[in-house]
């Protein structure tokens, strides 16, 4: 576990990782377990949802809500519309913001960088630690969904579950990388979390507004939530083009992080 910075960083967070994964399994199962009873009372529920104000519907990521009795509609409403994105964002932002900045605030960066490593190497290894951790969480979520769907008689494509798990991971990872890059630039973990949260909150609100306000509609693609919610990967699946915006954000944040960390003084 101490062979490189990536593994060591993951090991440092092993307890947190274990609890997050347990939490995700519990969250998925407790929601999926509700599905059989929801299916029963489908008609009145669909009517209730249909009568919700548009603004409320917009917050839940789209029109599919009326379809709450179908597995796709149900999972989108209960998990992927809000809960899962928030969880991934919180996880990735906490991890990403402290990846570089946390080590600096602890004061251990001096010793780490006394080893014959370039700063770029340190940033990339920390980045890989974040990527692996958030991917693991996504994989565990997907696995829980597949198993949960089997147990609770939910007919849904495992491939499309994988698609929505991937966009969930990428959504969280993207905002996590904003925290990561901020940490690389400033060495301040708290600032990383704050900046990432502002971006995530702003994107979420903008995505909701774009559904309600005609003028904003043309710019809906500016919010990363669009590529998770509106594309509706659970229903439509995804192709490579759909994940490009996430990859672009992650790549830019990584480059900014590398350059930012390389240029400045390490806090003492």
């Amino acid at each position: 576990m101490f062979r490189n910075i990536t593994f060591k960083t993951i090991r440092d967070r092993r307890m947190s990782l274990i609890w997050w994964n347990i939490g995700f399994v519990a969250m998925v199962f407790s929601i999926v377990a509700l599905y059989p009873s929801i299916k029963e009372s489908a008609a009145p529920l669909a009517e209730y949802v249909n009568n919700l104000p548009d603004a409320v519907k917009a917050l839940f990521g789209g029109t599919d809500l009326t379809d709450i009795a179908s597995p796709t509609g149900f999972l989108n409403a209960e998990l992927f519309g809000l809960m899962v994105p928030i969880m991934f964002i919180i996880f990735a932002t906490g991890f990403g913001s402290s990846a570089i900045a946390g080590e600096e605030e602890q004061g251990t960066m001096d010793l780490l960088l006394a080893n014959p490593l370039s700063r770029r190497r340190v940033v990339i290894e920390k980045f890989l630690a974040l990527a692996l951790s958030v991917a693991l969480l996504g994989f565990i979520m997907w696995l829980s969904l597949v198993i949960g769907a089997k147990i609770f008689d939910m007919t849904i494509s495992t491939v499309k579950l994988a698609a929505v798990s991937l966009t969930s991971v990428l959504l969280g990872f993207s905002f996590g990388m904003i925290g990561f890059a901020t940490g690389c630039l400033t060495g301040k973990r708290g600032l990383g979390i704050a900046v990432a949260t502002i971006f995530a909150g702003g994107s979420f609100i903008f995505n909701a507004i774009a559904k309600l306000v005609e003028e904003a509609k043309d710019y809906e693609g500016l919010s990363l939530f669009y590529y998770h919610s509106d594309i509706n990967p659970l229903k439509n699946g995804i192709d490579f083009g759909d994940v490009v915006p996430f990859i672009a954000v992650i790549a830019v944040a990584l480059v900014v992080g590398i350059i930012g960390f390389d240029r400045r003084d390490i806090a003492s």
Partner: protein
Amino acid sequence: MAKVVVTTKNLTKYYGNTRGVESLDLEINEGEVFGYLGPNGAGKTTTIRMLLDLIRPTSGQASIFGLSTSTDTVKIKKRIGYLPGELELYKNMSGSDLIHYFAALRGGVDWNLVLQLAERFKYDMKKPVKTLSSGNKHKLGLIQAFMHSPELLILDEPTTGLDPLMQQEFYRLIQEVKKEGRTILLSSHNLPEVERICDRVGVIHDGRLITVENVSELKSKAVRTLEIHFASQVTAADFDNLEGISELKAEGRVVRCTVKGSLDGLVKRAARFEVVDLISHEPDLEETFLAYYGGLAN
């Protein structure tokens, strides 16, 4: 002519408007123990962290082994061992895990040497870092600095927090490293320590290098306060016309004074009377600087 290992040219660091160090020109030769001496806030840590490329010079440059610290830092770091002045370690690891980690990142560490160092410093590698006393943390810091037998050791206040016994062990280690022809740069705010283990000393004060001298020269300039207790009454007149003595006061059976350089004259004069006790206070660094270099520093 010995090879020069560390060179700085006009090296300057400002933190915003605060001066860290200014126009530093330093040369450290291969195989010497170089003491970097100065009171707190003088700029020792600033200099050392620039050599490690942890902070970047405002102007000027530094090189180690003839390689630029700003472009070849990875190559340089392969060949040096570093002990930070403010040592922080991973609290969630054991000492052994931590050394394993750094050994893996560095590569080419002889584990026997690690065990030997741990034994020398009576350091228990199994204990979690968070339970270690500051002295033990310091030992861990020293082990990681020495474990790969680096050509150059850069140690920022290496004896702070070590108990006296371990300090002696550290001094012995330094002598061994020196015998092997390796180079040591260590900072200190303790003049006797530097006098004891170093060959040459660079004195820094307020961000400026005031002088670089051989230790013997420095000794001859040290200022210390002395207190002599006699069996009977003495007067100030008994001690007049002595070279290097100032601020002499005789009160009853006790004489207090400040001595610059050699104590010989004073001790011989005191021997005319019955001496009960002789107390020499550690030379005060600040006073030494002010007495000798105060003019230059401005």
